[in-house]
């Protein structure tokens, strides 16, 4: 098992030399990158919005319950929702959702192209397929996912506000005071660092699983599942490492 893992890590790292080669035609790569930005960004906006709204709301409701009967000031709820959304929930939840939605989509798309000989056809034409099929997706993800994470953070805080105010637990003033208390700009930097790293991980892992798929539709299904599972595990490991490094 360790041998297999090391083999795939080595292959994955070595494969990057092919991915980041000079494009044959910048215009084609640009067009493909824009298409991918649309697919990843607009295609994921709704689910990110809905999930973030409820995560913010649930965080607020749960902490309201926890804080009842304590001496902690009411406005702390805004502070807690804000920091949890920015530092952890928006970026990690969004990336996990995207690993599921975008990751499986990418693995299926590239794997399907492999099975239908589209990749062979491009190779025969002289296209560097690793670069043409993967680089635009990674670049698109690096642009779009941090934007989605920003949306997720804002919507989460909005969800917390709605749940708190309309739940009748606190006043709007308390929540807003909390939002404006103890703010450290560094937490926003942390969010974006995580967003970039997670975007890279979820896209490259999914592309790898799709690109090297062999066999038929069952194997393609397995590759798609692996893209999601390995993507999520890698994101969680990276999350821990980044948290340790950036808070030490």
């Amino acid at each position, binding site marked *: 098992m360790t041998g297999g893992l090391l083999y795939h890590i080595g292959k994955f790292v070595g494969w990057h030399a092919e991915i980041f080669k000079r494009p044959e*035609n910048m215009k084609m790569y640009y067009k493909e990158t824009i298409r991918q930005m649309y697919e990843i960004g607009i295609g994921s906006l709704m689910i990110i919005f809905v999930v973030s709204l409820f995560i913010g709301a649930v965080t607020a409701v749960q902490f309201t319950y926890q804080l009842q009967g304590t001496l902690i000031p009411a406005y702390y709820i805004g502070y807690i929702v804000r920091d949890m959304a920015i530092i952890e929930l928006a970026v990690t939840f969004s990336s996990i959702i995207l690993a599921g939605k975008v990751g499986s989509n990418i693995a299926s798309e590239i794997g399907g192209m492999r099975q239908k*000989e589209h990749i*062979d056809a491009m*190779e025969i*034409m*002289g296209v560097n397929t690793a670069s043409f099929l993967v680089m635009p997706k990674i670049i698109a993800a690096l642009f779009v996912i941090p934007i989605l994470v920003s949306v997720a953070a804002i919507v989460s805080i909005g969800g917390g506000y709605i749940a708190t105010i309309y739940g009748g637990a606190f006043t709007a003033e308390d929540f807003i005071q909390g939002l404006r208390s103890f703010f450290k700009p560094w937490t926003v930097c942390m969010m974006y660092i995580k967003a970039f790293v997670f975007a890279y991980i979820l896209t490259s892992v999914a592309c790898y699983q799709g690109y090297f798929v062999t066999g038929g539709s069952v194997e393609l299904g397995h590759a798609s599942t692996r893209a999601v599972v390995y993507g999520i595990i890698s994101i969680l490991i990276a999350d821990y490492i980044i948290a340790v490094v950036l808070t030490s």
Partner: protein
Amino acid sequence: MIRAEGIFKQFGDQEVLKGIDFTFEASKTNLIIGKSGAGKTVLLKILVGLFDSTKGHVWYGDRDLCSLNKAQLRELRMQVGMLFQGNALFDSMTVEENIRFPMDMFTRMTVGEKQKQVDYCLERVNMEGINAKFPSEISGGMQKRVGIARAIVLNPKYLFADEPNSGLDPKTAILIDALISDITDENKITTVINTHDMNSVMEIGENICLLHEGKLAWQGNMDQVIESDNDILQNFIFASPFLQKLKNRAFGTT
């Protein structure tokens, strides 16, 4: 001219090709024939560089495919067109975008020049007016023709076709054969077709290589097929009882 020299290919313990030596002649329609599992597709993929051979060399003129670096290989592939068994047309692109793709990727032609070349290629395969259709909106035979149009759009020196007749009715299969043969003659292309279609063998086989269990079992041309006394060839060509009866009637044998 393309020359396969001592080609061996092994997948794990299974030896698929066992020392193939064959010359695919320039400006001719060369056929690789044989039963399913004989190693035809593997040989074709080795010829175009999609598979590496375990041992042996593939020569394009005086260039050894196995010793080319990636840049040289890409340069060579610009001279190669290929028609795949499943057509390999990009589903998300229209017919026109499919044919234009190699030009978009590798040439600095103007929009007008590209359009002219797309229209010429579609006209050449008798498929005018379907530019805006998607591959899923046209029939299998039409997809084959579009695949041919895409393969010839950059005026290749070498054309490869992996079972171009598979899944087609006999009449359409004959038309596809004739089209490939005509394009080969007109443009002096070296064409290599992998097939087990008997019509192809008898109609367009100018240079034929019969594979059997990974070895070269016979070589010749369409005129020599009937006269040959090679058992493997005869068993392959006249495999069906119907063709066997026809042969017996024609040659007065029992």
